[in-house]
């Protein structure tokens, strides 16, 4: 990390090598990261009883990762991200219901369909303050939920979409009642998409997104087509969320209206913010923390677990959430903690001042 003291006097080529090393290093995996994924893979063998909730965690983690792409990297706040999650879930579910039972084909179709939806709605979030964006995205999700409710001939309406039967993954692995196939499948998909996302955020494209988040005025002045980039990442994130939704539909073989509900969007926001936005692992860690906590608390007190979740949120914020997440972020070489403790990754600008 220390600056090369010989930089100014060294020959250009040796400096160039140093610069390149520094830039390329950011694409390299740290030990903590590798350990994280190894532990995740190990749970396939060591925690056979918990595969069902782990499956849900993997799906929520992917969903939160998708929100991180737009919130943490591009600075677009969304309170309606469930629109894409639910759309993907319905796409995959309806497809399977009508005979196309191959899971991977379903994922592909669902992600394409949601990408289209994301592209179409991305133009709504290019303008306005954070509050406006929150409400516009929320409105889109609510509208979609209402459409799904009305179109009960297609979606099953409020009763939910029944009669989904999935074929085996890759033609080999049937979904079992222990959720092992489901978890392995979701984890594998999440991992692959994570690797892609990780490449993307260290690419020049990813760098340009961060620059837009930090200072759109300057980003434009550097010649970055800001709107086009935002549309691109919003579309990508939509596709990711669509895949997460499709995974849920395929592994639970049921889709109900609440995949589009407000609480999905709000929960995923909580998950991401708890885990910390802007370093990709936030969504995954947040999903693990939130779900385990919820599982323990709601087993302990099914009626009143929400109180304790609420208390934890309040304490977390008062105790300085960012300090905690910064400590975790520091494990990842690329993102350094901000010394002033201010939200470097949290682009939410004051509503009145934009």
């Amino acid at each position: 990390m220390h600056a090369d003291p010989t930089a100014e006097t060294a020959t250009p080529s040796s400096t160039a090598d140093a610069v390149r090393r520094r830039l390329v290093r950011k694409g390299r995996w740290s030990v903590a990261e590798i350990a994280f994924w190894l532990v995740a893979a190990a749970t396939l063998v060591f925690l056979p009883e918990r595969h069902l909730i782990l499956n849900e965690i993997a799906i929520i983690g992917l969903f939160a990762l998708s929100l991180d792409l737009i919130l943490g990297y591009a600075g677009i706040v969304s309170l309606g991200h469930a629109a894409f999650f639910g759309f993907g879930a319905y796409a995959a579910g309806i497809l399977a219901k009508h005979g196309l039972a191959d899971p991977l084909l379903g994922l592909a179709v669902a992600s394409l369909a949601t990408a289209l939806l994301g592209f179409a709605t991305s133009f709504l979030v290019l303008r306005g303050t954070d509050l406006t964006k929150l409400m516009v995205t929320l409105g889109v999700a609510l509208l979609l939920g209402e459409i799904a409710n009305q179109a009960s001939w297609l979606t099953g309406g409020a009763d939910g979409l029944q009669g989904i039967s999935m074929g085996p993954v890759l033609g080999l692995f049937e979904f079992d009642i222990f959720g092992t196939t489901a978890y392995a499948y979701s984890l594998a998909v999440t991992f692959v998409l994570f690797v892609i996302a990780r490449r993307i955020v260290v690419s020049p494209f990813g760098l340009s997104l961060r620059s837009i988040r930090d200072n759109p005025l300057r980003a434009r002045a550097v010649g970055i087509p800001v709107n086009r980039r935002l549309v691109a990442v919003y579309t990508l994130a939509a596709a990711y969320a669509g895949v997460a939704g499709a995974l849920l539909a395929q592994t639970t073989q049921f889709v109900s209206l609440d995949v589009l509900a407000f609480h999905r969007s709000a929960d995923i926001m909580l998950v991401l913010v708890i885990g910390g936005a802007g370093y990709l692992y936030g969504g995954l860690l947040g999903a693990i923390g939130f779900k385990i906590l919820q599982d323990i608390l709601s087993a302990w007190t099914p009626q009143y677990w929400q109180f304790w979740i609420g208390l934890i949120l309040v304490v977390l914020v008062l105790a300085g959430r960012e300090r905690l997440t910064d400590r975790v972020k520091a494990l990842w070489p690329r993102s350094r903690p901000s010394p002033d403790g201010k939200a470097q990754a949290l682009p939410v600008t004051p509503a009145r001042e934009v």
Partner: protein
Amino acid sequence: MAAALETRGLMKRFGGLVATDNVTFRLEQGARHALIGPNGAGKTTLINLLTGVLKPTSGQILLQGEDITGLRPERRVQRGLARTFQINQLFPAMTPLETIGLAVSERLGGGRDWWRVTGSRREIVDEIVEIAQRFRLADVLDERTSNLAYGKQRLLEIAVAFACRPRVLLLDEPAAGVPEAERHELLATVAALPRDVSVLLIEHDMDLVFSFADRISVLVNGALFTEGSVEEVSADPRVRAVYLGESVDE
């Protein structure tokens, strides 16, 4: 030969207020041209018109002889018109390395590249190194921008604009707020900008204007008041009256 940058009858009205009044102006190739004027003369509006942040009410802007009036800001940058900001507009959470790398890779078409790691292309790395050395940032490349000394931040501000390889560079008060100790480094760097870049300098600091510019335009109340060589303008009694009188002859 076409001017590097030219405006023809440029007008901007905000409601009843005329902020830019029929400005027709040429920035010659390789020029070192200063634009001065008292506060509220409309310098910022003019810059915003040139860079495309604002749309003119009427009139034309030409870059290297081509009409760019209707182009969006980022397209103008891609055509070779870059600017710096009077108040730093940097990426506080990024390092100078990333900032310059961003601008370079963007210009080389890398911004659409979402698969390769930044820095995997040789020509990008070479150019980052060249710019970092030119702007004396090589020893702070890995610092967080928000932690840099103010003078270094100003240098970075110019370096980012320069990394866009502009044919025309608009410098908006580059030395504003730089402490005396760091000033020399900055002025030397500005003076050493290559001659194939035409520079329009917007400045309050008359020392800098006189040492840097070979031509001066004076803007008053949104209109072009006068234009000429440094000697002509500094000798013009009307200019002294409206402007220089206050800042030079005190």
